[in-house]
């Protein structure tokens, strides 16, 4: 397939996944805010911090109030990872490869963008009762994934789509895990209290992982939450799951067996997967979770660069 088309499909899926992550993230924090509201403990600064874009936020909106955070993450057209910007980018990418995806996929992403664009024109109304809106965004993104699954041949293009989606999701789950690092407990005595548990539960919900965690582990235990989100083998948002399946797609694209590596992309992703393969949660935490997550994110970025070099970059003619 054309390199340009592969790249557009890859990014279309990353952006849709990103929009969904932001929606879920914001929604959970809204719920959390209600639980913690009485003590004035509503925290939006950590949410902004985990995006890594706090400087841009401060410059554009100033104080990390709820209203400012919601506008920034949802409707700020100048912020490339706002829901609106993500869906616009996804749609523009889709528009440039409409012939390569199914009509149903195009219509799903087009409808999602048009409805968020429409909502951006009545922000005050939407943000006054935002839960329905974020639900719609999540649903639209999930509908897109399902539509792609059942309407598109599972060929090279489809694997580029899946790889993009999974790499993005691995990154987002790692960031969710990192929230806890930024989130301040008001008092030392709060550790191990209801507040602590509420926050860990919120973390799981941000990754739509709460119910699945309960089935697997029952009680909320911080080290198990970390294990579940980073290393669970079957939960579709765990970092290990995403990286393993992304690697499968990568090898479906190249046609090489897993554990062979003939391209920069295969080498980078293979190494990252191997690392996650042989680590356990205690080790992660002992080495400093935040530092490990930071390292994971830069490795993941390197995978993205290698994918670009291997498949999308313009090659010189001989």
């Amino acid at each position: 397939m054309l390199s340009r088309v592969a790249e557009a499909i890859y990014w279309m899926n990353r952006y849709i996944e990103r929009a969904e992550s932001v929606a879920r993230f914001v929604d959970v924090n809204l719920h959390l805010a209600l639980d913690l509201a009485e003590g004035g403990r509503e925290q939006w600064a950590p949410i902004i911090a985990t995006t890594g874009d706090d400087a841009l936020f401060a410059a554009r909106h100033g104080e990390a109030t709820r209203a400012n955070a919601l506008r920034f993450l949802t409707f700020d057209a100048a912020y490339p990872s706002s829901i609106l910007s993500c869906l616009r980018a996804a749609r523009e990418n889709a528009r440039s490869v409409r012939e390569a995806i199914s009509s149903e996929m195009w219509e799903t992403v087009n409808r999602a963008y048009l409805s968020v664009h429409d909502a951006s024109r009545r922000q005050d109304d939407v943000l006054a009762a935002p839960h329905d809106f974020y639900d719609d965004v999540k649903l639209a993104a999930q509908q897109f994934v399902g539509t792609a699954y059942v309407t598109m041949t599972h060929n090279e293009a489809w694997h580029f789509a899946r790889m993009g989606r999974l790499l993005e999701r691995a990154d987002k789950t790692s960031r969710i895990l990192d929230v806890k690092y930024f989130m301040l407990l008001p008092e030392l005595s709060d550790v191990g209290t209801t507040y602590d548990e509420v926050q860990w539960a919120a973390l799981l919900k941000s990754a739509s992982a709460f119910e699945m965690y309960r089935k697997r582990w029952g009680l909320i235990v911080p080290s198990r939450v970390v294990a579940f989100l980073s290393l669970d083998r079957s939960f579709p948002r765990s970092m290990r799951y995403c990286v393993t399946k992304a690697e499968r797609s990568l090898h479906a694209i190249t046609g090489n067996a897993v554990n062979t590596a003939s391209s920069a992309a295969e080498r980078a992703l293979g190494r990252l997967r191997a690392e996650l393969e042989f680590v356990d949660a205690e080790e992660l935490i002992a080495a400093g979770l935040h530092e490990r997550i930071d390292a994971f994110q830069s490795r993941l970025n390197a995978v993205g660069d290698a994918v670009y070099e291997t498949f999308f970059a313009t090659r010189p003619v001989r």
Partner: protein
Amino acid sequence: MDTDAYDPGDFYDELFEARGRPRPGASLLIERLQGMSDAELQRRRSGAERALLTMGATFNVYGDEAGTEKILPFDIVPRIVEADDWARIERGLAQRIRALNLFIADCYGEQRILQERVVPRELVESSRVFLRRCVGMKPPKGIWCHITGTDLVRDRDGAWLVLEDNLRCPSGVSYVLQNRQVMKRTLPHVFEASRVRPVDVYPSRLRAMLEQVRPAQSGDPPTCVLLTPGSFNSAYFEHSFLAQQMGVELVEGRDLVVIDRAVHMRTTRGFQRVDVIYRRMDDAFLDPLAFREDSLLGVPGLIDAYEQGNVSLVNAPGTGVADDKVVYAYVPKIIRFYLGEDAILPNVPTFLCAEDRDRKHVLENLEGMVVKAATESGGYGMLVGPASTAAEREAFARRIEADPRNYIAQPTVSLSRVPTLVDGHLEGRHVDLRPYVLYGDELFVLPGGLTRVALRPGSLVVNSSQGGGSKDTWVLHGGEVKPC
């Protein structure tokens, strides 16, 4: 919907013989419309426009924000063409396009028609779209113009006339296909009873034609692509729609590269050879080495690869020479010269401003004339006399005198009308018709076409850039239809 209240007026009406008297082919449609409430019709119309927007059947308005593309306004009252009329149109178009192809081949070959002075030599050789580089070229099967979209109109008596030949990159066929989809879901009960000929075959016929005109030493099956200027082009939707429906790659100039005088595309597995290019950009932009040096859209070396016979271009470069609006005036003579036949579909009477007598007549009667620049299209560079101001006519007269070769004029044709839904009732609006013709191993006329409608009351200009919309075009089956 009270269809008896509709006033066909002093025009040829496509659906009514007279007030309250539908034409035979339209009686079923009118009867069904009569059975629907005004509100119901309005609801269906909004539903149709929403469907078009979701499909993304849009054209871009340059400089607008994403998601604000416009749909071509769509009217749910179809235009009906009866079987007999269509049979004549089909024969007329086939004749015209055969003759024009012979003409193009001759202009770039022996130039018999110029030597015999049937068409003046200086007319062809002074044309901006005559490409010297193409002289001596022999495209596969001798076909230059593979895809045509000829504009037809009907006058006050209902006679079909050719208004314009579009032999370069005619657009609009995607609207024909999408409008039909929308009509089927908007008025299914009307549609199913009406014995309408299907248009959905177009993409397969198009792909078959592309494969038929492949270069001699190409892959089997050949690799066909559609070349678009990119997603900012106003017709981008159509490019991607056709590529998708045909199942071919949609490429931009930057996706293609010429290696060893052959065209390749950049894929995730390296370079892949391309055999046939359906290009949707003007000749001038195709290859910065051959034509416009400043073209960033084109592919350096493309024309050389074409001349080597390593790739086919559809339409061939250089076809513009035959849709020059001055050459248009000579088409009846061109048909006679090559085929020895009279034109089945006549031209609109045309005055050539280059000729003294004609020019005098035009300048004296500007108010009743439509004046067109020879090589413009899309409704640009033209004067519609009856709708113009004295100052505009004055300015246009000076332009004609400065460059008479570049202008033709036609008496205003009183275009036929079709009832159109306006504010919940029917009003007559002027229309034209653009049928699409493919020319490969055989000549294929799509039974249908783009009916463009001038939505402004009284307006005769149907171009989308000038406030036009579109309707579905129903070509009816002839004779008895056998039950399946």
